[in-house]
């Protein structure tokens, strides 16, 4: 099947994916600078970056089943970049929440993390993503050896927590979070053979 050359991947496809992944950030930034984020800009930014983080996690998890399904082994070369973009949007989400929403009031943040379950699980997911991002480089991969793969399997836990975070925060309409949950379960099913191997 389709097999771009390594040069095409590193010189064309990777920059293309990189800039497309960065584009939503640039659009949000431009909307923020032009005061075009509506009546409650902080809420808009929080929701948009949260959605983006979730999408990129789903994209990252979709690569392995897609590879197995279509036999496109080179897809895996985009996994780290997409995973890091998921982390990038999760970071923005957290920064907007802590700095702009909570105004860096430590007590308010701690109260939220301890007392509001949807924030507890969201924050836990962020901690996992932080660990994964910190160990995403080749040197860490070499140093951790076999444990690296085990550690990075926890991305599935992070994804589950993110979806739970979403389910718990909506007031009435569960359509969207349950749609994401279904996609997640499908992606899990899609990689059952590879999971049982390890």
């Amino acid at each position, binding site marked *: 099947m389709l097999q771009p050359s390594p040069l095409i991947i590193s010189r064309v496809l990777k920059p293309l994916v990189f800039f497309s992944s960065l584009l939503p950030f640039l659009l949000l930034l431009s909307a923020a600078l032009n005061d*075009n984020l*509506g*009546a*409650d800009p902080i809420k808009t930014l929080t929701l948009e970056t949260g959605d983006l983080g979730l999408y990129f996690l789903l994209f990252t998890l979709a690569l392995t089943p897609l590879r197995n399904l279509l036999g496109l082994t080179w897809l895996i070369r985009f996994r780290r970049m997409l995973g890091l973009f998921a982390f990038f949007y999760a970071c923005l989400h957290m920064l907007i929440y802590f700095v702009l929403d909570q105004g860096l009031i430590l007590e*308010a943040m701690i109260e939220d993390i301890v007392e509001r379950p949807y924030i507890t699980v969201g924050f836990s997911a962020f901690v996992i993503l932080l660990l994964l991002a910190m160990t995403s480089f080749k040197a860490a991969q070499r140093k951790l050896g076999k444990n690296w793969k085990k550690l990075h399997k926890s991305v599935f836990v992070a994804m589950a927590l993110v979806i739970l975070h979403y389910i718990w925060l909506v007031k*009435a*309409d569960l359509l969207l979070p349950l749609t994401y949950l279904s996609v997640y379960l499908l992606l899990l099913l899609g990689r059952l053979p590879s999971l049982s191997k390890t």
Partner: protein
Amino acid sequence: MIIKTKKAIPSSDITDQAVWEQRRTFIKSAALLGSGIASWHISLNSYAEDITGKALPDVQKTTIGNKLTPTAFKHVTSYNNFYEFGVNKGDPIENSKDFQTRPWTIKVSGECEAPGEIGIEDILAGFTQEERIYRFRCVEAWAMVVPWNGFSLGDLLKRFKPTSKAKYVAFQTLNDPEQMPGQKRNILDWPYREGLTIEEAMHPLTMLSTGLYGVELPNQNGAPVRLVVPWKYGFKSIKSIVGIHFTDTMPYTTWSDMAADEYGFYANVNPDVSHPRWSQKYHRQLGAGVFARKQPTELFNGYADEVASLYSGLDLKKNY
């Protein structure tokens, strides 16, 4: 002393005019594309710059809230919780454009001597429409200031002569899935219902609103007639009312039935009673921008002097 002089720029470094123009065009189109996608994605391009709508005749100004700064019309009318027209804040303005508010009647029934109906024309012509500027606090910890038009609900209720058995007043929104697309899915137990004690309903601050900013209520704000109870969380202020019912028992209310631990019958604004998902100590003022700090929330949304006596002897932590 060394005085630096500017070196002449070599001609090879000067960007060719054609290339420069190409770059400008590229940057411009990229920006256009960017802002196009942004406005599509965030869908905030439906903003009205000025106040739009049909002017209400003979609105009488009052001094109520004249020290407050109203939130911009565009924000008041584009950021709405009105699940009948969709669950996102920008949905109601989009999905309520064709909503028909004529003819419109409110049916008044229950424990009263003169049950009956009242049409929107009589509501508009039969009562002095005042302007009152109220604080509005949503349970989701955001707030705005709205110059409402309308009159005290009690003035209308008295016409139907509630009896001594009328301890509560129940309200109901229109149920019409053809016109209200949000009702096609069972997100809430339609029709939306709310309720007040008779004392709350008769309190002069409690308003039946027919407009805002001097124009008839925009559809997304609850046209043609809605409740406004400024010391309670916004969900109590039921929109597009078609039914009022006097009763001797505490009526069914939609949100408290759906999640009793999150939404109480009283739903008085209270910074000391925390919602499971939002601290109620602070709120954010709409339209204040990205860097605005949150504001401290006051008991009864700042109307304690007027309404605290309604709740003397009531444990506000239990009866939230």
